[in-house]
């Protein structure tokens, strides 16, 4: 008779150790993502008031979406905003990254200055911009008046287009440092030898940019773009704090509409349904970007 062998082989121990290492992450993802996601999905099939009894209503929340004009308006607005805000962040981020690329004296100071707005909370920075845009005490009106560019204080938030523009300005200021850091890492990973041999071949700045820099930064750009687009599609704080969705409800982003339905109109189930749809949209968008910017060699 032989006794079962309880001691693990080296291979088994290796697997067990690996599982122990991923366990905290699995647990974390399960508690903070999988379970809430399942709950959201469950709620989206209910009439689920913030206070009171909930009832199963099947897919009614989803069919309701097609009739919800503000939902369609918000989707449209969110995508327009994303399309408008992404290019400036990237172009400016790339320029800044190029500027702070080489290790010269005091470069740390500039990198820090450009990155500083990123570490401020978006809520705080939005409040800051509310005051900077104010018609009585705001710095922008003061500067424009002193330069004689305007005759009287402007109400930046009174018109949909100017409101959108100043919000884009505030978000670019707030987030460009982050894109800069990502692109900087990509830039610095390109070996100098490539540029040197291009110089020998007589390539100009734009040739080097399009044939060396951008192709070799494909992965970095993909990462930065996906993060930036997700951030823009999920935009909420700046509209909630700076414009309150106005003027004429023209700046209600899709997340703002989820918030309004869930907490102002007390329709949690409906808010959950929009969230699920938004999740689908984001997964699709990110997949497309990832596919387009994939490594091809």
């Amino acid at each position, binding site marked *: 008779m032989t006794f079962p062998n309880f001691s693990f082989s080296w291979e088994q121990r290796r697997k067990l150790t690996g599982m122990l290492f991923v366990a905290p992450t699995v647990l974390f993802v399960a508690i903070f993502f999988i379970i809430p996601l399942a709950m959201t999905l469950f709620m989206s099939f209910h009439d689920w008031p913030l*206070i009171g009894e909930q009832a199963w209503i099947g897919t009614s929340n989803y069919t309701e979406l097609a009739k919800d004009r503000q939902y369609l308006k918000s989707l449209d607005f969110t995508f327009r905003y994303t399309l408008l805000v992404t290019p400036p962040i990237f172009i400016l981020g790339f320029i800044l990254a190029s500027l702070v690329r080489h290790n010269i004296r005091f470069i740390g100071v500039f990198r820090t200055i450009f990155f500083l707005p990123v570490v401020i909370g978006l809520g705080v920075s939005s409040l800051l911009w509310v005051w900077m845009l104010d018609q009585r005490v705001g710095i922008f009106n003061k500067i424009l008046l002193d330069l004689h560019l305007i005759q009287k204080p402007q109400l930046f938030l009174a018109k949909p287009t100017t409101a959108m523009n100043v919000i884009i300005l505030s978000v670019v200021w707030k987030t460009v440092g982050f894109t800069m850091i990502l692109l900087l890492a990509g830039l610095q990973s390109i070996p100098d030898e490539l540029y040197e041999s291009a110089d020998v071949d007589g390539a100009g700045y734009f040739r080097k940019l399009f044939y060396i820099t951008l192709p070799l930064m494909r992965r970095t750009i993909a990462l930065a773009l996906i993060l930036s687009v997700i951030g823009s599609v999920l935009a909420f704080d700046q509209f909630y704090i700076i414009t309150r969705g106005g003027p004429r409800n023209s700046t209600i982003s899709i997340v703002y509409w989820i918030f309004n339905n869930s*907490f102002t109109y007390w329709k949690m189930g409906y808010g959950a349904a929009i969230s699920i749809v938004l999740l689908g949209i984001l997964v699709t968008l990110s997949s497309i970007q990832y596919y387009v910017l994939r490594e091809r060699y």
Partner: protein
Amino acid sequence: MTPRRIVFAVLIMALCIGALPLSAQDEGVTMTMWVRNIGDQVQELVDAWNDRGGSQIELTVIPPAEFVTKMGAAIAAGESPDIASIDLIYAPAFAAAGQLLDITDWVDALPYADDLIPAHSELGTYQGRKYAVPFLIEGSFIIYNKGLFEAAGLDPEVPPSTWDELLEAARAISAIDDETYGYYFAGACAGCNAFTYLPFIWASGGDVLSDDYNEATIATDPIVREALEFYRLMWEEGLIPESASIDDGSSFVSAFGTGTIGMAGTGAFGINTYRNDHPELNLGAFHIPGQDGGAASFGGGDVIAIGSGTQHPEEAWEFLEWMMSDETQLELYAARNRTTVRVSMLENEYSAGDDLVLTAASALAVGHSPYSLVYNDLFNDPNGPWLEMIQIAILDGDIDGALQLGQDRFTQIMSG
């Protein structure tokens, strides 16, 4: 920090947090109370209560436009306050959701139960049971600057009583100089305009909701269109400062205080603020007029209720009873230019000869308070149809579009 030190620090923190409720219990009962931010009268009242010793109240002030959102979220999270001062308009919704304590027996036992302001008492009642009592009595009216009336060549003792007279007065005041405006309204504040603009419609015999509050009458009632045209005209002629278009309510009270505004809608909460902060202003008040005379007011303000989840119902009721008592009403309400919660005390030794306080009190006689479970979604929501309709009509001039939008979205919200 070494791992052992971190563990130690966490343990200490856990002990401190665990000890907090214990130490609070030792010092007597502390209750939480929520109120929306309209003036400082509630803080004064709570301070006076806390100074008496005994149970203490911790006051949290919420921005008015956020109240329903925050209160709903707190209730859903099981963290509702012991005492809540609620915009009377929302009282039925919170009572219907079972979030307010039934205080029928306590209220009925009061010797002055029948003397409480009727509009507030009605909205504090749900299916025959009482859940809230009157707390802040705010009938809307128009405050005016007598100094500017005089400067414009108007008789400061004869305020306008029709829309045309109001328009003429606003024109005359605006003509004084470029910095002076005849009229003011907060163009990006939904609740402010329910409070001060709806009465223009009511006073002319119109309404935006049917008598049973089940249908929207925005597109069918001609008065609504005329009221929008009336404000639009004042806006177009520049009788209202341009900054009004982005006022989300934060300048609703302060704009008039600058002394450059002839007339503005307000409530009793404004009287003390203007008198204390701007003693130089010579103030007058008149009821919100109808097109050809008449008057109306929004019977607004707050009722006060006890949260159904409270651990201290008796202490909370003691505060409510103290608040409604003769002494508090006289010394902390009447003496400070506030409208009392008791009908028989509306005229008192302090209000005698005080036009502003008497106008605020008599506004209640012409006051309406819509009774709707979706009031917030219709009127007070900053992204709701009421504000969007007002902005499109008055600021953009598209009155047809505004009426259609208002009618459609009101109907959609009321149909669930």
